């Protein structure tokens, strides 16, 4: 079974988690001044990365917290998990597999 390292609870089985889409999508700083194009990009446009991708995950049937994870989309390997609000960790060269 796929084990995901929750930043709050430690390593836990995958059925407890829910996927939350691309991470680090910033809401326009001044919403009333944002253009239609900026709203479009914020609301709908997402990357479809092949390889290491920063995603939001939620430990839905555990501590309930959202956190971020670096996952290789080709191998489903989790390279790192970190708390929401933190910067993604720098991976060692050739870290992806």
């Amino acid at each position, binding site marked *: *079974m796929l084990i995901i390292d929750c930043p709050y609870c430690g390593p836990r089985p995958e059925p407890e988690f829910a996927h939350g889409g691309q991470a680090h999508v910033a809401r326009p700083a001044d919403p009333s001044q944002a253009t239609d194009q900026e709203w479009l990009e914020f609301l709908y446009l997402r990357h479809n990365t092949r390889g290491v991708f920063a995603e939001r995950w939620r430990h839905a049937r555990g501590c309930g917290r959202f956190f971020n994870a670096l996952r290789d989309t080709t191998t489903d390997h989790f390279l790192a998990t970190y708390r929401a609000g933190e910067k993604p960790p720098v991976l060692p060269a050739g870290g992806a597999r």
Partner: protein
Amino acid sequence: MSKLKRHPPHIDRRDWLAPLPAATRFSFRGSSEAAAAASRALGVELSQVACRAHVAGERAALWLGPDEQLLIGAESEAATLRDSLTVALGDIPHSLVDISHRQVAFVVHGAHAEWLLQSGCPLDLELSHFPVGMCTRTVFLKAEIVLWRTAPDTFRLEVWRSFAEYVTSLLAEAAIELSA
């Protein structure tokens, strides 16, 4: 009629599964400041460590998340607990919700308790990984449960009441293998 029965054959559940009496339950959420105030009112120190339960007498506080605890007390204490917690928490931002009747509790105990729960729970329940005093929200097959190990061979399950029959039936089904 077919020899197949819709329900698993009756087995004596009493020797490994026991329902627990009704209890008072609160879902508590708040900062560490609110948790400290709740600890004083409850008489149980709310755990700061992930997935640990603290007990004092009939009262218990189970860590469910960084800002979330499940507070359990005797059924007769519902009003007392609510009032003392509300007074102690005062103006500190928090959420305190009475969920006494949302869920029911069972004890699964005996030499096969770990094996029985492992039939539907994907966590590693081996004693070194899931020690006495550890508690967590997790899944039992499709049902969400709160699992708490109160002794090496004893687990307390908190199950949403409409899922109780589902969980106990599947545990009973797993137990058939033990009697085979």
